[in-house]
C-alpha cells in the first residue's frame, strides 16, 4: 500500500472506529489464515429499504485493514441497505486489481458489512438470530512470498 496523503489521514484518525454498544445488528469478517477479524456494528433506521444511521467497526488486524474499515464505513454511513449491498459488491469486485495483502483486508471489511446487513434481515424474522460471520477467500500473503 502506498502511503499517500488520504490514506495517511485514515491511519492517523480512522473514521468510525470503536464499538457501537446500542446496535441493531453486528457482523464479522474473518481471515482464518492468521486470525485477523473485523466486526461491524450498525444502528439502523427501519423502513422498506432500511438506512444505516450509524456504523462502527473494530478490528484485530493490520493498518491496511484499519484504512479499509475507515473508508468503507465512511461510504456506508447514511446510505440505504440496497446501496450498502452495492457497496459490498463493488468492493468485492475490485479485489482482483489489488495486491493480495490489500485485497484480503478489504474483503474482510466488505464481508463484515455484508454479515451485518444479513444479520439485520435475519433478526427481523428471529430477534435471537446470532451474529453472522463470513470468512475471506483471498490469501493475504504477498505474491513474492507465495512464489518463494
Amino acid at each position: 500500500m502506498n502511503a499517500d496523503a488520504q490514506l495517511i489521514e485514515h491511519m492517523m484518525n480512522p473514521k468510525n472506529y470503536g464499538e457501537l454498544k446500542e446496535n441493531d445488528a453486528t457482523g464479522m469478517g474473518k481471515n482464518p489464515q492468521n486470525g485477523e477479524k473485523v466486526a461491524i456494528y450498525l444502528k439502523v433506521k427501519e423502513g422498506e429499504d432500511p438506512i444505516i444511521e450509524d456504523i462502527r467497526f473494530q478490528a484485530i488486524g493490520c493498518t491496511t485493514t484499519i484504512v479499509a474499515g475507515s473508508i468503507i464505513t465512511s461510504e456506508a454511513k447514511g446510505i440505504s441497505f440496497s446501496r450498502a449491498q452495492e457497496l459490498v459488491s463493488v468492493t468485492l469486485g475490485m479485489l482482483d486489481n489489488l495486491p493480495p495483502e490489500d485485497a484480503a483486508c478489504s474483503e474482510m471489511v466488505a464481508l463484515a458489512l455484508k454479515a451485518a446487513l444479513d444479520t439485520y434481515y435475519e433478526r427481523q424474522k428471529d430477534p435471537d438470530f446470532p451474529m453472522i460471520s463470513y470468512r475471506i477467500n483471498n490469501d493475504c500473503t504477498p505474491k513474492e512470498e507465495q512464489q518463494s
Partner: protein
Amino acid sequence: MKKLFKEVHEVWLATQFTGFMSQTQSRQDLYEFANIFFKHLTWLENDFIKNKIPYDYSIDQVPIRVTHLSHMINNIVQRLESIQTLLPNCDDPHITERMQSDIAYIKSTLLKMPEEDVSYAFDTRRIYRNVPLTDEARDALTLFLFEESYKEYELIMVYNFSKAHSDDAFLNRIFQILVDESFFHLRSFGQMMAEMGILGVPRSLMEEIYKFNDLEQFLKDGIQEEIGAKEECKRLAQAVSSSSEYFASFFTFINNQENYHIALMEEALNHLQTKDRLK
C-alpha cells in the same frame, strides 16, 4: 467507577501523546505525568479485581491534532477536572486521596508549561529532520510506525492485564519488564511519528486481545510475532539503510531488542510448562 477508569485511561494517552509533540523540557514532564496516570489506572484496576467487578480497556478516540501545546494542555486539564468529579465513585479513600493529590499538583504544573507550536507533528509531510529518505523508505517507515505504535500500546495493555490477574511473582516480573520495554518502544516510535508529522493515538483494543484464557498459547503466538517483528525491523533497516545510516542503526538496535523479548517470553513459557508438569 467504570467511567472514571475509562477517563483515566484516556488522560494517560492524551498526556503521553502530548509529550511526543513537545520539543522542550515539557516533554519529559509530560512523560512523567503520563507515568503517574498509568499508575492511577493500575490502582483502579486492582480495586476492580479486589471487588470482583468486571471491567475492560475500551476507550473513545483521543483527538490530539492541535496547532499549539496549550490546546492539549487545556484539554488534559479539562479531562483531569472531570476525573476529579468522578473520584468519589471509587470506594477506596486511599486511592482517591492519592489521585486527588497527584492531579492537583499536575494541573498546577501543566498550566505553567511554555507555549509551543506543535503543528509540525500533524503536517503529514513525512520529512525527518537532517535525514534524507527515499520514497520507498518513507512509505515503509510510515506503515511501520503505525503498525508498531499500535502494537506497543496493545502489548502494554495485554501484559498489564495479565500481570493484574496473576499472583505468580516469577511471571509478574517478566510481565513488568515487557510492559517497560513496550513503553520505551512506544516512546521511540511516538517521537518519530511526531517528527514525521503523522502523530495519532492508537485505536481502542478489542476485548479478546487481552482477555484470553490460554496464556501458554498467547506466549507461543507472541514469540512468533516477535520473530515476525524482528524480520520487519531487518527489512526496514535494509529499506532505509541506503538513505539513512541513522535509521538503519536504530532499526538494527530495535531488532536486537526483540531477542530479549523473545527470551523473556520463552522464560515465562518454560515456567508455565514446568508448573503444569508439577501439578
